[in-house]
């Protein structure tokens, strides 16, 4: 990616919340932290705030770099920056690490104030609803009553959707990308295999591996390898790797195919930087999210109180969050006569396409976002 229009050097901030948060499970977090980053300037009437919700392995570090030497920028740097589709000259953009995460917000790796030790297995199960409620607290602290937009892909799209349900008057636009109104059985199955890989790792220790000075690397690595298979399309894999060999066939079980090499690299990289307890919780949040459940499976009823305007977007080769799932959301919105547009982007990259700087995809986002009205002059 070109370095043009980068937001430049950024720094995370931490917000502390001392009011207890009751979670969907009934558990209560007496206090918690959320780590977040912001890009651009909040305008005088605070009407230009955009919240980015991250997916399974995302973080608050959406755009820019921490130091000039950083090899990679934030995970959605191709979207967010001055002059980019989500233009930080216009919008005040917020990236936040979700509760249960492992990048600074309260989660299994953070210290439980009650014990002075890492939470580990004791950190409660958090849900999409809990995340949105905690994000709303962050907005309160930033004195933002209403978001110009909330944007998310995949699990992030579920949060964007949940925002419109839980806080209808606090969201003007929701961009729900490569998402679904709940997971299919197949998706839950993939998550279960990933969790089993972690839980059955001898170094998992029931989730309290921190005190043993080990991490369930092998399990997390396999979980991530499985994930990567499902994020790509068969065609994209075929095109990128095909049956290419690194060398000659060796008649053994070491890395011989390029595909294996890629998966092992991704697995190792991820297992070195992500927390297994967080991975378990993120996949569980995915499994549990189902806003229609409280309405006998009627998604139209679940979305009947939303006031936001919607852009729903899917990718043709995404089989993990297929276009058909996005169309379910669109149908429910049409049933409610909501303001909604739906784009089905032709893309080869599978589920991962939502992170790619595809020209047409970004043109849609740029066009939609540039139409969003925000109040007058920027504060300064």
């Amino acid at each position, binding site marked *: 990616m070109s370095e043009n229009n980068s937001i430049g050097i950024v720094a995370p901030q931490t917000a502390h919340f001392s009011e207890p948060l009751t979670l969907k499970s009934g558990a209560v977090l007496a206090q918690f932290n959320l780590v977040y980053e912001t890009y651009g300037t909040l305008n005088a009437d605070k009407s230009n705030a955009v919240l980015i919700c991250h997916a399974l392995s995302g973080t608050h570090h959406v755009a820019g770099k921490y130091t000039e030497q950083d090899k990679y920028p934030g995970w959605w740097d191709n979207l967010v920056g001055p002059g980019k589709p989500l233009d930080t000259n216009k919008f005040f953009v917020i990236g936040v690490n979700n509760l249960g995460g492992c990048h600074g917000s309260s989660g299994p790796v953070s210290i439980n104030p009650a014990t002075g030790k890492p939470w580990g297995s004791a950190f409660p199960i958090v849900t999409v609803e809990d995340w949105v409620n905690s994000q709303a607290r962050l907005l309160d602290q930033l004195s933002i009553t209403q978001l110009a937009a909330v944007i998310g892909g995949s699990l992030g799209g579920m949060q964007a959707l949940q925002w419109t349900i839980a806080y209808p008057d606090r969201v003007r636009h929701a961009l729900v990308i490569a998402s679904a109104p709940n997971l299919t059985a197949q998706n839950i199955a993939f998550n279960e295999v990933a969790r089993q890989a972690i839980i059955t790792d001898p170094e998992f220790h029931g989730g309290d591996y921190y005190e043993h000075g080990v991490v369930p690397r092998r399990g997390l690595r396999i979980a991530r390898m499985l994930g990567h298979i499902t994020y790509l399309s068969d065609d994209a894999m075929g095109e990128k790797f095909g049956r290419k060999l690194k060398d000659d066939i060796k008649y053994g079980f070491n890395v011989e195919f390029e595909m294996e090499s890629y998966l092992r690299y991704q697995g190792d990289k991820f297992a070195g930087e992500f927390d297994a307890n967080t991975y378990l919780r993120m996949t569980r949040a995915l499994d549990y999210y189902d806003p229609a459940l409280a309405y006998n499976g009627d998604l139209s009823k679940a979305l009947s109180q939303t006031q936001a305007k919607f852009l729903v977007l899917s990718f043709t080769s995404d089989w993990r969050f297929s276009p058909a799932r996005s169309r379910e959301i669109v149908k429910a919105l049409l049933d409610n006569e909501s*303001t909604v547009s*739906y784009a089905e982007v032709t893309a080869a990259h599978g589920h991962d396409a939502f992170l790619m700087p595809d020209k047409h995809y970004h043109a849609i986002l740029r066009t939609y976002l540039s139409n969003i009205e925000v109040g007058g002059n920027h504060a300064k």
Partner: protein
Amino acid sequence: MQNNVNITKNVTEYRQDFAIIANWVKFGTKVLDLGCGDGELLQFLRSSLETKGYGVEKDDTNLIACVKNGINVIQMDLEDGLSGFEDQSFNTVILSQTLQAMHNTEEIVLEMLRVGKEIIVTFPNFGYWRNRMQITAGRMPVSKALPYQWYDTPNVHLCTINDFDYFCHHHNIEILERRVITDGKEVNFMPNLLGSLAMYRLKSK
């Protein structure tokens, strides 16, 4: 069914077929435009009749144009039908000069009748005398209304006004109103011979 809304002032800027469609759509109602292009008709209906409009469009470039114009647009292929739209959920469903390019012609009309309380279908009349002349001269017609050569035309199901009348009769579709225009002017005399564009307002019997 005529509207008393004052739209005549703006009409000259727009296509004649838009003006007739606007007269068939009621103020403040819900409209679905199939093959909506850049959303021009929906914009026109919104500004003149405050309709709540949605467009269906397959083409990527048109989709972005709709988003730019602030038109609700759903990207899908009409050949797949209108699943995702509930029965009788729109006051009017419009198919403007797209019927002749559909493969699943019969299905889309029936789907429109399912989703819309009333539907509007417009198409170039293949029975128009200029087309007949060209056929008589031994060539496939090429004209302003049918600007393609036989080998590059998207039009696969051309029909005449008489054909469509028969289609409606055969499918138990009630013709509420039919208007025929040539070069922006209404044709009342021998429409199947003298009319270039046919416009129908229909509902299920």
